[in-house]
Structures are given as C-alpha cells and as structure tokens.
C-alpha cells in the first residue's frame, strides 16, 4: 500500500529537475554589457557580431563575452569603463543603422545561454525606469483624413468644370452646387474617387453631404494607432535604451516602457511632439479663396499661403540634418507621389515663392469655469520661403532653422510622422535606488516569511512537516521557473503574491495531514490513515484551489499594471502548490513510509 508506480516517481523527478533547470538562470548575477539592435528590426547574423567585436577590440577593449540573442548582439564587459567606452565607439560608428544601448545583462554561462534559458524579467518598479501611457487623438486622425477628401473632391469637381463649394465641419463634408442639374454628375465623381464613403442628397436638391462609414472610421483609427506604434518604436530606438517596450493598450492607448531611464523629459519631446512640415505656394495676390496668413518663425517674414498642400510630412521618406552654404539645413527626400506633385508644382511655378511650414501640436490643460479641460494647440509657422529657381522632384533642402532644430526636425521626420497626435495621460518614473530597495525588501520578506512557516511546520507536523517544507521549497522553485519560462515581469506586487502563496501553499498539506490525524483517531491503521488522508482531502483541496484560481483569473483579466503582476504569481502559485501538495509530497511520503509495516505515523 501507498506505493507509486515507477513511472509516476520518475515523472515527479523529471518535473522537479525541469523546474530546477528553468529556475537556474536566476542564480547568476548581472554584468555590464552593450546591446546592439538593428534599427529596421532586422536580425543580426554571426558576421555582424564579428564586425562589432572587431570594432570594440580596435578600441583596445577586450569583451568578456559576446553572442547573438534574439537577433540582437550582446557584448559583455569586465568593467563599467570598458562598457561605456565600447558603447561610445559603437554608437559613433553605427548610430544611423543600429540602436546601441548600455545595459546590465545576466551573467549566464554559455551552456545555459545555449539552452535558450533566461532569468525572470524584472518590472519597472524593481529595476527603475520610465512608464508612460499615451492616448492617441483619434478625432485629429479622422479630421486629417477628411481634409484630404475635401481637397480631393474640390480638385476633381473643378477638373470636371462643375461649379461648387466644399465645406468641412464636424467630420462632415458639404458640397454645395449652383443648380440641381449637376447633382448626378457630382455624385458620380465623388463615388468614383472613393466608392466606400457615404454620400447623401441634401433636402434642397443641390447639396451633397459626404461622411466616412463606421468601417472606414474604424480602419482609419486602427491605421492611425498602428502607424503611431511604428513611429514611436522608431523614435524610441533612437534613444539608445535597452529592451524598450512600445505596445498598444485598448482602443486608443499606447504604453511606452523604458527600463533604466531616469529623466522622462528627454522623452517628452520625441514622444509627444508631432512636428511635421508642409510645403505651400505663396499667394502673391493675397486674395485667392482659402488662402491664409501664417506667422513667421523668429525673424522669418509672415506669408499668405495658398490652401493646397504640395507635399506634407507623411510623404517624407528621409530627412537628414546638415549644412548648406554655411546654414543649418534639413535635406529631404519625398516619396513618389509627393515627388510627382512637387515636380508638377515647380514646373508650373518657376520663379514663384514657396514656403515650408513647420507644424507642431501640443496639448495644454486649461481651467475653464473651474473645470479642467484639455486644449490642443497647433503651432504653424513659416520657417523658410524661397523662390523656385529650378525644377525639382524627390530631393531638396530647407533652411531657416537653428542647428538643434534642424537635428530634431530631421530626427522626427526620419522616424516618421505620427498619424495623429498623442498625449501623455500617465507617467511614472522609478529611480534605481527605489528599484533596488524594492528588490531587497521583497526578497527579505520572502526569506523571513518562508523561514517562519518552515519552522512552524516542522514543530507542528514533525517528519510530515519536513516533507511539506520540501514541497514548499520546490513550490518556490517552480514559481521562479515558470516566471522565467513565461518571461512575465516580476513586480513588487508579484513578490507579494509569492509571499502570500508561501503562506497559503501549506494549506493543501495541512488539509491532508489533519485528515490523516483524524483517520488515526478514528482507528485506522497507519498505512490506511495515510492512504485515505490523501484520498479524502483531495476534493476539498481541488474545490478550494479552483475557487481561489477564479479570483486570480478575474484579477488577471480585469486588472492592470500592479494588479496583473500580483495575479500572475498568485495563479502560478496555486497551480504549483496543488501539484506539490497532491502529487509531490505523496511521492515522498510513499517512498519514505509506503509498503512497509508502520507502528505509528509521524504526523
């Protein structure tokens, strides 16, 4: 009685060994390193690794180790000085193509690395860093699309020689015709331009209203957020931060996490600025319909500019800062559509002036009637006006900026324009000293709590308490193993979850042991008492754990941030504690007491 078949013993052993192996990477400390990732998201090969290492060695620095990891190159060093010098060197040489970040990396031996194992990843509250939650302004995304429609319809109707007026307000385009006779033709032109939009006849018989369908709006929103994600990723990569996270959250939110960054201000500019450029012709007569006066930046003269945009920021595919005739300049390359339009415009308008308009969007909070309100401010300034001296197409340059502005603008333009402005609605910075404190305190609490429980169990349940303690310890190892395997971030609430699990994990064993005691009191033989103790406690253990698991799953599903971290460790803890209590301790008890004559049960 009370013997497990060999396969079950072996299975338990295999699971325990696997747990130990997965948890193993956590015992090595960390070491200074430089991480190099491709800016375009490509994966590096061995040849590239060798190249980087040669560059580092060329600077007289000997790396401690170097290897490829998830398509990135990691080079480890023996000292912070080596790390910084190498980082400097690599950044100088590869700043255009690669994101070079100085960081701490786990000091894993080669064989552990080769197995693809890695330690738990620590949340921002444990390693320090910046967390930012951004909201994407969806209205602006829709508005800008509607403005494009407006211009497009206007052009097409004019080409068809239909007299009209096109107005845009509240995401609704109203087209007023002079008479009812053009209605059908106008409708046809609009439907040909975009067959998906919703076109409605006005009551007076000579107006058309156009709006986007729900699907179009949703597509546009998805596009806006996807493009913003890509753009933000590109921009964040230029910051030289190791393992940055840029992720969509919900319908219109983006989370940015930058481990190790201390000053969120360096981010603000590149995260929320939606600086972009537009090129427009100067309205020399000053009275064309739709023309508008734009202020000049600094000493730059204000200009009245035509309504039509020749090319805008989202058509810029490359921008470099430099100098042209001693002046700071940005060298711009347009995509083919923008280039085509630019070619046509410059051909038709030789010797006429053209302006570059710098557009920046910011959001301010203002108090109105005692209520806090968000207000969007759009700054549009002429930064440069030049006479078109020759025909040009895709590549040209603009001047009229300070060297720093030229650099920032080039960076923003190169990283791509944001399809819609983003606003920061949540920002948290955790300093490195607090991160380390949180780790120390958390692990201290685990250690002391664990010791207290272990001591209690041995005193209270003797030999069986010892077995429960083995289970409790393997439970901890399993939680760490699972966290490492899933690469779920460990946070301070996560540690609290582990601590709580330590306390609750013994419950299953307590249920079993108390049942065994009851069976003995009821007169069962020792072997029978053990057997039915485990048997009868099973349903209680399952019911109790499943109900707790329900609470943990709900927490995980509904919760955010700190709650999620807690829910993960709680869930893992419940699952591993069920395994260790029901199968794990049983295996040990069977090996120790099973199949032989017992006078009493040491419980």
């Amino acid at each position, binding site marked *: 009685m009370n013997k497990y078949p060999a396969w079950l013993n072996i299975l338990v052993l295999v699971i325990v060994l696997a747990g130990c192996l997965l948890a193993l990477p956590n015992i090595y400390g960390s070491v200074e390193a430089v991480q190099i990732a491709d800016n375009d998201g490509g994966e590096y090969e061995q040849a590239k690794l060798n190249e980087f290492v040669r560059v580092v060695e060329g600077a007289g620095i000997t790396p401690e180790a170097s290897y490829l990891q998830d398509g990135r190159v990691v080079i480890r060093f023996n000292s912070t000085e080596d790390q910084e010098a190498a980082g400097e060197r690599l950044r100088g040489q590869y700043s255009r193509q690669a994101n070079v970040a100085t960081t701490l990396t786990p000091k894993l031996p080669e064989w552990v690395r080769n197995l693809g194992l890695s330690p738990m990843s620590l949340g921002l509250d444990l390693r320090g860093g910046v967390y930012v939650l951004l909201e994407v302004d969806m209205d602006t995304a829709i508005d800008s699309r509607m403005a494009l429609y407006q211009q497009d319809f206007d052009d097409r109707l004019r080409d068809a020689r239909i007299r009209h007026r096109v107005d845009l307000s509240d995401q609704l385009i109203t087209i007023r015709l002079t008479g009812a006779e053009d209605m059908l033709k106008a409708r046809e032109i609009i439907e040909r331009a975009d067959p998906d939009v919703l076109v409605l006849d006005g009551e007076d018989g000579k107006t058309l209203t156009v709006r986007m369908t729900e699907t179009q709006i949703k597509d546009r929103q998805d596009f806006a957020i996807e493009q913003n994600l890509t753009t933000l990723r590109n921009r964040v990569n230029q910051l030289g931060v190791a393992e940055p996270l840029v992720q969509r959250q919900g319908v219109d939110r983006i989370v940015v996490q930058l481990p190790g960054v201390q000053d*969120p201000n360096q981010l603000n500019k590149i995260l929320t600025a939606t600086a972009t450029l537009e090129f427009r012709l100067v309205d020399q007569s000053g009275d064309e319909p739709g023309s508008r006066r734009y202020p000049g930046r600094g000493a730059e003269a204000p200009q009245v500019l035509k309504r039509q945009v020749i090319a805008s920021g989202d058509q810029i595919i490359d921008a470099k800062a430099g100098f042209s005739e001693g002046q700071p300049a940005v060298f711009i390359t347009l995509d083919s559509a923008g280039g085509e339009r630019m070619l046509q415009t410059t051909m038709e308008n030789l010797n006429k002036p053209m302006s570059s308009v710098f557009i920046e969007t910011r959001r301010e909070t203002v108090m109105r009637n005692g209520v806090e309100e968000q207000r969007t401010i759009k700054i549009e300034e002429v930064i440069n006006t030049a006479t078109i001296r020759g025909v040009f197409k895709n590549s040209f340059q603009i001047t009229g900026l300070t060297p720093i502005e030229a650099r920032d603008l080039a960076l923003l333009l190169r990283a791509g324009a944001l399809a819609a402005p983003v606003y920061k609605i949540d*920002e948290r910075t955790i300093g490195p000293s607090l991160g380390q404190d949180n780790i120390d305190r958390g692990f201290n609490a685990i250690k002391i709590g664990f010791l207290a*429980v272990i001591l209690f169990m041995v005193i209270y349940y003797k030999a069986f308490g010892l077995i429960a303690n083995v289970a409790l310890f393997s439970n901890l190892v399993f939680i760490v193993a699972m966290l490492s395997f899933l690469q779920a971030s460990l946070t301070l609430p996560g540690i609290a979850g582990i601590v709580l699990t330590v*306390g609750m994990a013994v419950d299953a064993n307590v249920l079993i042991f108390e049942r065994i005691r*009851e069976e003995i009191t009821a007169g069962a033989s020792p072997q029978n008492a053990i057997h039915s103790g485990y048997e009868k406690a099973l349903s*209680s253990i399952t019911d109790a754990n499943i109900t707790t698991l329900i609470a943990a799953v709900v927490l995980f599903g509904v919760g955010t941030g700190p709650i999620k971290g807690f829910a993960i460790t709680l869930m893992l803890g419940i699952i591993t504690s069920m395994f260790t209590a029901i199968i794990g301790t049983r295996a040990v008890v069977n090996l120790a007491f099973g199949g032989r004559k017992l006078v009493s049960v040491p419980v």
Partner: protein
Amino acid sequence: MKLIKEKTTIDFLGAKRRKIALVISALLVIASLVSLATRGLEFGIDFTGGILLEVGYPQAANLEEIRSNLSAAGFSDAQVQRFGRDTDVLVRLPPQPGTDAGEVRTELQQVLQANGESIDLRRVEFVSAQVGSELAERGALAMVIALLMIFVYVMIRFQWKFSAGAVAALAHDAIVTVGFFSFFGLPFDLTVVAAVLAVIGYSLNDTVVAFDRIRENFFALRGVSAEDAMNISINEMLARTLITGLTTLLVLVALLTLGGESIAPFSIALIVGIIVGTYSSIYTASATALALDVNAQDLIEPIKDPTLIDDLP
C-alpha cells in the same frame, strides 16, 4: 504537537451563538458602510489622478520646511508626509492644470532641494484624473465579476443555498476590509483592490473547505440535524482553519514589517481580511446556509434514469 485539543465540540451554530454572530457581523457591516458613506476612502493617486513624488533626503527631512517651501512656490495644496524612513518624504499634489509634466517636475525638484541638499527622486508619478476614474471602475468591475463567477461555481459544485452563504460571507469580508481602510483613513490604492480580491479568494477557500466537510457529514451522519452536522463539520475543520490562517498571517506580518512602505497597505488589507475571513467562514457562511434551511436533501442529485432505482439498497 497540537494547537487545539483532539476533539472540540464548540457549539458554533447554536441559536444563541448564531444570534450573537449575526449581531456582530451586522454591526461590522453597518459600521463599515456608515464610515464609507461619511468618511469615504483615502484614495491613492491611482484613482484620483495627480502628482506624487517620493524623495530621499541625505538626512532626516524637515517636513515643516518642505511644506512652507512648497507653499511659497505656489504648491499650497501639497500634502507632505514621511514615508517609512526619516529621510524619505512623500509629496502629493492634485492634478496641476495648465502645466506640463516635465516643467512641474523640474520646478518641484528645485523647491524640494531649496537648501542645496542633493535629493534622490525615488519615484515620480503623474496620473491624469481620467486614468484614475477608469482604474476605479475596473477595480469595482473585477470585484463583481469575481463574486458572480464564484457564486456560479459553488452552485454547480454544491447548491444555491451554499452559494448564497459563500457570497454573503465574501461580501461581508470585502465590505469590512474596505470599511477598515475607511475608518482608519489608510491609503487605498490599486494594490489594496488586489488584496481585497485575494481576501475573497482566501476566505472562499476556507468556506469551501468547510462546505466540503458539511456535505460529507450530511451523508455520513444520518439522523443528525443539519445544524448539528454543520457544527460537527466546523469543529472537525477547526484545526486546519486556524493553522492555515496562522501560516498565512506569519508571512503577511513578515511582508508588512519588511516589505517596505509602498506594499504596507496591501499587507494590512490582507491581514484584516484574513482575520475577518476566518471568522466569516465559521459563522457567516454556514449560518446563512442554515438560515436558508439547507439540508441533506438539497445535495442529493435527482436520479435521472428511473430504472437505476432497482439497484439501490
């Protein structure tokens, strides 16, 4: 070793005891609700939005001076308090309209190190009021969903009268724990919401274990009244209930004393919740089921196939 003597025969559910327990529970719940209605909760920045700074000074910080410096700089609505150690200070401000997060941060940093000390900005949080109200909604939603799902699970595994008992006990625990935070003006943040949900999970654990034994005894002890069967079951499970509560409290006390200030509200919520939860799984849960006239018949599954009756003894 034994915590309690071999066989206890405490009359947990006798008519008189039940009445006392009912009065205690009712008083606790009413006091909690009154406190919540009149005093409300000290909501953390997670829920209200605003600015929070945790600052480390090289020596013991002078709170009065920090307060007057802040108010001189126009931050008169700042709350300044010590955070754990003498050298650590927590500064909290309501949302600052018309300003940029970066500028406020720089300005605050200058004000806080007015005396030229080099301060350590350990934590800076800017939360908009909008995010705050969303998080509060989600927390409440989580609570409701969890209670509903638990009700359904216990109904499937036992019977609706047990479900009602379990959920009554859980709601009791949640209300009293939150009421405790309200009454003592403790900071209520996201981690406390997580803790209250963990309390629900824990208390349920206790309740279900008791129910499990009650079900077993309903069948094993024939001819015994429901009240007696429940009483016997609770007595049988008493050692387990106390030991698990004790080990859990052991680790929570370690977490409270060693885990640092930011996790302290979480630990307090769990400690209170587990004490209340242990009490409620003994008194509230079973008493509610008993008040609903639960009996062995409720747990017998109806026999679907009539031909099987012949096989019964």
